[in-house]
């Protein structure tokens, strides 16, 4: 038992972090806020070159053969950078393609040539191995030829072209593009039952990992500001109103990080309580990120309320990720219904 990442895993995360800081700095979100797509083609290609999309694709299919744990470390860095682009749905789609044996799609995703958007059913909608029916909210599906639907029963790929009229919708997050498709009745092009591989749980872990990255980034931004910003002749971090806020942010970040590690290993190893651990990770990490993002604005005072400061980027991405793959009430409802943790 050693729940901390290995030296190799830490190296991998550091390489990704360095690359993202260089190629997808948070400022890029502001620069591209008026573009129709959130996906930065140059950075996306760079991610492919680095092997990010094939991180847990088997080596024989051109990937690095890693697992959920390494993916979680990568997505934590993506969260920390509030990286724009459909990373979550694209990486999960690669797993689906591997599982159903669609080598062409695997190769295309790994090479950065195919991005996959995320689709979420609106109330009343349904999907199964054959069709998806109802109204859909689409996340970062601009220019993506496919969208991914994830549910506890299974995961489906659907061709974007089959969705009919897709209308862009103003997004709260300048790094995420929303769209709506109404009255969809489209065929599923690939289906992976949860019993074969629980892609939904994997998605929960990766979403939680992004939220933890945000919680940590907020802790770090506030701590740095508290050390350098002076008022009344001293750094504001000497004030307990600020210091204790930062301390609470550290607690939240540590808690979320630990649970994401625990859930990643649980999903990877197929523990009996993997679902409970993954849902718990989502709830705990979302809470950590929500609290920390709000505190980070407050610690930065007026600066934290400006467009130029990164604080609002965290607040907005948290809102998106809280709602991706089910929100707090949905997961709590399942957490209380499942058997106690192992």
């Amino acid at each position, binding site marked *: 038992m050693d729940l901390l990442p290995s030296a190799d895993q830490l190296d991998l995360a550091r390489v990704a972090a360095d690359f993202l800081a260089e190629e997808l700095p948070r400022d890029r979100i502001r620069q591209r806020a008026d573009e129709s797509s959130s996906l930065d083609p140059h950075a996306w290609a760079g991610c492919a070159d680095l092997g990010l999309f094939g991180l847990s694709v088997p080596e024989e299919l051109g990937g690095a053969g890693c697992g959920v744990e390494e993916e979680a470390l990568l997505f934590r860095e993506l969260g920390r950078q509030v990286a724009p682009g459909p990373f979550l749905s694209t990486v999960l789609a690669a797993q689906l393609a591997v599982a159903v044996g669609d080598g062409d799609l695997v190769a295309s995703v790994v090479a950065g040539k195919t991005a996959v958007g995320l689709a*979420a059913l*609106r*109330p009343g909608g349904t999907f199964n191995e054959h069709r998806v029916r109802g109204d859909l*909210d689409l996340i970062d599906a601009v220019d993506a030829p496919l969208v991914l639907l994830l549910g506890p029963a299974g995961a489906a790929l659907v061709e974007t072209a089959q969705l009919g009229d897709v209308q862009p*919708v*103003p*997004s*709260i*997050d300048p790094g*995420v593009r*929303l769209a709506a498709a109404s009255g969809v009745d489209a065929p599923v092009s690939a289906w992976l039952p949860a019993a074969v591989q629980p892609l939904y749980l994997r998605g929960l872990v990766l979403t939680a990992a992004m939220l933890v990255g945000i919680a940590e980034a907020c802790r770090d931004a506030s701590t740095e500001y508290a050390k350098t910003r*002076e*008022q*009344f*002749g001293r750094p504001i971090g000497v*004030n307990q*109103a*600020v210091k204790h806020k930062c301390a609470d942010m550290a607690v939240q970040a540590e808690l979320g990080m630990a649970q994401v590690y625990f859930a990643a290993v649980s999903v990877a190893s197929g523990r009996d309580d993997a679902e409970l651990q993954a849902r718990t990770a989502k709830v705990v990490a979302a809470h950590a990120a929500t609290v920390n993002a*709000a505190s980070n*604005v*407050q610690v930065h*005072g*007026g600066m*934290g*309320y*400006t*467009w*130029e400061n990164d*604080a*609002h980027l965290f*607040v*907005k991405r948290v*809102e*998106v990720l809280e*709602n991706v793959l089910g*929100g707090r*009430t*949905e997961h709590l*409802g399942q957490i209380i219904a499942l058997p106690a943790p192992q």
Partner: protein
Amino acid sequence: MDLDFSADQRDFRDQVRTWLHDNKPRHERPRAAAGIREYDLAWQRTQFEGGWAGISWPTEYGGRGLSLIEQLIWFEEYGRAGLPSVDANFVGLNHAGPTLMTRARDDQKAQHLRQILAGEVVWCQGFSEPGAGSDLAALSTRAEIDGDDLVVSGQKIWTSFAHVADWQELLVRTSRTGSKHQGITWVICDMHTPGIEVRPIRTMDGEAEFCEVFYDDVRIPLANVVGEVDQGWSVAMSTLSFERGTAFTAGQVRLASTVEQLIELAKERTGPDGRRPAIADDELARRLATARAEVAALRAMTYVGISRSARTGTPGPEGSIVKLYYSEMVKHVARLAMDILGQDGLRYVSRWVPGGWSGNYLYSYSQTIGGGTSEVQRNIIGDRILGLPR
């Protein structure tokens, strides 16, 4: 303990209600600053011409010369009529105006006060600086006396409506000897003076309601100083508590109306279980009920504050209690709306249009920062109300 308004006050309320109903602006409020300026000034002029500007201002400055109770009634009816916050006129009506009344020379009052009430001018505030936020007295925008002028150089920040303002209440440093509270001067700055540059600051919600103001050898007549040179701190402090007093009344009424709208929304929308309406969810229903209870108690606290001010004649530090509670509550209510909306909260809708809950959520982050952060308010409450050691 008495909640009854006198017969005259009830008459007054009826008149206000009728007048607001008949005269309130009918066309949509523009969203660009220049448009807002014209809209807000025109609406202020309408009020002035109707005899409704400055309910509790002395008649000699064009006000109605009535008590705080009538002022409260006005704010309540104003809020209930769903009218917009006074925005472009806020500083003139709630801050610069009261300061001039309390501390200015007669000629300064004669020049400015009626113009403010009459909707002829927009005022802005020039207090905060990049290096002087919560620590306002650390301000460093300097002013040298040169002949009959102050020559001002430096920078202010968080100035709402600076780009469309005519006048500014400006704090500058005229001396560096003594404590940082000394050597500050409160001066009336003509925003059209050469050497002033205004740059909008884009905020979290994508709007640009604040500005930075840069001063490069800006000449302001010494005659524009209010109070004495170097004695501006006491001038500034004499009215800062006004901002935390009755000025929240209209906001409180608006918040009450927001809570009622949310309750309606929760009855119409499907709740988190995808089947029942949101209001059928025990947790959401209780959060809404709690908001309704809290906004009722906030009104009671406003009434207590006005009763207290009416007895003492001036708003006390208790205004910080209202400000702290009000602004934290605005945030809670904005958050509650997002939790009711769920996934639909990701769609950005400006707070200026109906259903703009997501825009309102982003805007709500400014509430516990502007006008003194919640941390500053807690310090004031601890130090000035409870008398705790510093």
